[in-house]
């Protein structure tokens, strides 16, 4: 086990949590991400194999799913982001490597764990918060919806699941994205 101490995207050793009015915004650094893109001509096979890995169907356009261990959301045509727990104790067995082992030449797999910051947003009134952040229609963001959008100029994914929303944004702009979320929450509540 190596001895390099990780930092969260917001630059701390522990994730930040903010409760503003009815909403709680929590940085979630404990997820590993990997992109899965079907190789040419392998769309169907890759989709099927991914379903097997996930334990549920691969998400369709603008959807996210959660399997027993892994979740995934649609990113582009025949391209998904798979997420699972980030194993700090054994980063060698990273998610991307495991997926590549399962999918072989059906897919190109790239580790994306460090590319994104994730904020989980829970509470009542998410619509009032997100209407000040992005152009998604929250009334239509039912559980299992995943949409790409812009939040304060940042390209983000917003996933609606488990009664809350997850925002994935570019990790290097984590502080800007956090500022946007906090400012909008203070404005809304």
């Amino acid at each position, binding site marked *: 086990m*190596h001895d390099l101490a990780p930092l969260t995207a917001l630059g701390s050793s522990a994730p930040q949590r903010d409760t503003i009015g009815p909403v709680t915004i929590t940085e979630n650094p404990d997820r590993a991400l990997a992109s899965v*893109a079907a190789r040419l001509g392998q769309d169907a096979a890759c989709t099927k194999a991914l379903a097997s890995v996930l334990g549920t169907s691969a998400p369709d356009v603008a959807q996210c799913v959660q399997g027993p261990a892994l979740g995934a959301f649609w990113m582009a045509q025949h391209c998904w982001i798979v997420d699972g727990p980030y194993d700090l104790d054994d*980063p060698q067995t990273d998610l991307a490597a495991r997926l590549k082992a399962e999918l072989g030449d059906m897919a190109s*797999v*790239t*580790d994306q764990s460090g*590319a994104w910051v994730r904020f989980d947003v829970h509470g009542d009134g998410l619509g009032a918060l997100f209407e000040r952040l992005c152009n998604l229609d929250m009334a239509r963001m039912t559980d299992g919806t995943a949409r790409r959008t812009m939040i*304060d100029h940042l390209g983000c994914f917003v996933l609606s699941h488990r009664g809350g929303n997850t925002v994935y944004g570019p990790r290097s702009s984590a502080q800007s994205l956090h500022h946007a979320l906090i400012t909008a929450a*203070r*404005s809304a509540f």
Partner: protein
Amino acid sequence: MNRLPTGGQIDRTTRLRFTFDGLPYYGHAGDTLASALLANGVRLMGRSFKYHRPRGVLSAGSEEPNALVQLRKGGRQEPNTRATVAELFDGLDAASQNAWPGLKLDALAINDRLSNFLTAGFYYKTFMWPAAFWEKLYEPIIRRAAGLGAITTDADPDGYDRGFLHCDLLIIGAGPAGLAAALTAGRAGACVILADEDFCMGGRLNVETHALGDQSGADWAAGVVAELASLPNVRLLARTTVLGAFDHGIYAAVERVADHLGQPEQGKPRQILWRIYSGRAVLCAGAIERPIAFANNDRPGIMLAGAMRAYVNRWAVTPAQTVAVFTNNDDGHRTARDLMAQGVDVAAIIDTRADAPACDGVQVMAGAQVVDSSGRLGLKSITVRQANGQEHRLSIGALGVSGGWNPNVALSSHQRGRPEWDDAIAAFVPGGALPQGMQVAGAALGQFSTQGALAAGAGAAIQALSDLGKTAQAPDLPMAEDGEVRITPFWHVGGTKARAWLDFQNDVTVKDVTLAHQEGFRSVEHLKRYTTLGMATDQGKTSNMGGLAVMAELTGQSIAQTGTTMFRPPYTPVALGALAGRSVGRDFRPTRLTPSHAWAVEQGAVFVEAGMWLRAQYFPRTGETGWRQSVDREVRATRGSVGVCDVTTLGKIDVQGRDAAAFLNRIYCNGFAKLAVGRVRYGLMLREDGIAMDDGTAARLADDHFVVTTTTANAVAVFRHMEFARQCLWPDMDVQLISTTEAWAQFAVAGPQSRALLQKIVDSEFDLSNDGFPFMACGEITVCSGCPARLFRISFSGELAYEIAVPTRYGDALMRRLMDAGREFDVTPYGTEALGVMRIEKGHAAGNELNGQTTALNLGMGRMVSDKKDSIGAVLSRREGLQEENGLRMVGFMPTSPQDRVIAGAHLLEKGAALRAANDLGYVTSACYSPTLDSYIAIGFLKAGDTRLGDVLRAASPLTGHDTEVTVVSPHFVDPDGGRLRA
């Protein structure tokens, strides 16, 4: 005092103190600034734009052209605010504008005496000569004299939000039509947004005395609003102006969240700019009354008759104790009746119609006209010419004028739909192509009766929902007034040489329109620009029709033939802060931070913006008094031992697939098909036109897996370019791309001790010897006992160097570990300045050289463009014009005196040649002081530069005045044979 003892929708139990021009007054909750001033007997509220004529309130709504005031002080000071829509709050500080030294005695009122000279087109005709006077003399004087309010130079302390709303049905305006539409759609369960610019929904229902069923209009409106508020599917946006109708059912609206407060609550915005995505929209924006022009019709106290009625009924204010009404339609009579019902003395109704109906309790002068008025700072009397030609004077304090009502068509015309003339109401109604999904109902469509508006609103909602596949039923609507419109168009009183105002805000008179016609400016668009009719904050809401009518008279055309000017957003003025939203100051755009940012902050680094990235520019140490000292030290330390620089910002693109190598072979102009696994190659990519686009490296991690690096600046552009090629040019290739710029923290470790430093942190099973990991090697390794990492032996500095990458979350820790481990080597962090110095010393091209105008040949890399394969840009790079032997070539320059500074951007000339374009031989692109050579050095592009080594030239900058004698040298100042790289 003009506050009526009873009535109105003000809260008389709440007394609000406010000031106007420093004098204290009191009003009530529910007042606007205009109603409160009128209640306090203040009729004079401003001065006109050009003639500085005394002006009072004309309207009771957002169409107000006259009563423009300045609100608040300091950073919250807001000019040109309409007193008619400024909601009164305790402590409101209001001031008049465009007057000096005071509102009552204004020095520039002299302009009024000079009005014969200051006619339409005065500026264009007068300030023609001498030309040099315009910018230095005329314009400053005119700017000082003109304008209305003054903008504050203090920063706005308030926040503004931007947001996004979605609905099935957007209803614009909450008058009778809008409320009926909202009730219909709301009860049907549709997602409804009802927006109204007023703080009290109800529109004209709040200002009229007609009953709706057994209720007053205001009570019915309040009941409906209460029901709508209880529906979860209905969103009520009061104090919200829909500013514009855009494509695909999208509307912009500003919600004034806190303009009615002294200041916003902590953390809350002052205003929100909403973008509303609607399935359908119903425009229920009502109608705007128009005045009749007559001599001196602009005095304080002369106002629209409907506004006078509104002040009496809604705010319990009469503008004066004795009033009269001048009208061409029955609606003017309604004003007289309402005022008399409130005990106001109505001296007469002057009705231009010969067949004007009688009105109980007041004399109706049928066929009469108001031909003049008097009263310097406020109306004292009017002169009436009766039908028989006799004139006599009426002493009154206020005159209500009604020339009829114009449907408020503005939003219906934002997609270039042209209104159509309706003879029945003598006004334009919405016409042509309405914005997608829009219907119009109520007075905005010319349906002026309350009953008609209610029915039309409900009908429009049913139709709109039907279009969306939903069903709705009309609610039981109350019986209401259903009178017909009776009007005889009458636009202005003729037969006078005195000025009769059409546009109060811009001081445009009937004479000005006549002059425009006389001088050939007859198109309405020309008329507008020549006279300024309909410009500025009110956009001619009360004036355009009058101007068009006068022009129509003059040209002999109908008003329909004359047409209207173009309607454009925004409907009413918008604070720039609302448009900016939260994108101001430090939040103007997001910031990107490198993984070692926190560590660099601890070191006291000075940062520079590189796109959105904040990069450490240099790391000053105690005792260093200037950036040069720091940078020189960092360069010497790196070249002398080892330095570390965060290079995470370089773009990284993961390229995978069976055809990854073939794909890169087409993207880069040099060959990549045969690059071995575990090796890195420098690559140059060209645009389609053969110009260099970007450079970087591609590392082959596996047969089907590459990592491409780009410059920081072009990371996004290169990714987009490659995606375009993948998806559109070669969709048959098996290639997948994804950015990994943020996924890896990457550090350059450069200098003769770089290997020794890395050997302390790279796990021992990885051989870093020169044989085991030679120049341009790459590999996936582990560091610090198992942390996954990637290592590339590449060098931008020209030294023995590596770039090492770890997952981003470990970047901070790795930087600290490198510093700890490197202590024995005096490891030095270096920033972008030292990075730049070292690459110039090495002669590496960067953004300054890859400037979108240069080719591989210009860059000295012509032979890299392989002729053994095809690649993007290869063919066009061989164009004759790009192959000239005398073309620009990248070379180095050293000043003949080492301490003479060479400036980037300097142009190259022969010694003794004059500094002009004809003698230009090229230009310097990058320059720095080289601590390695103890001299200024530079690189740049020189005509046939490769044949001129040793020549002495001038490097002169006409911008900075630098003029340096330089010798042309190789651009590779340091280690030209590359021995250090391969050590």
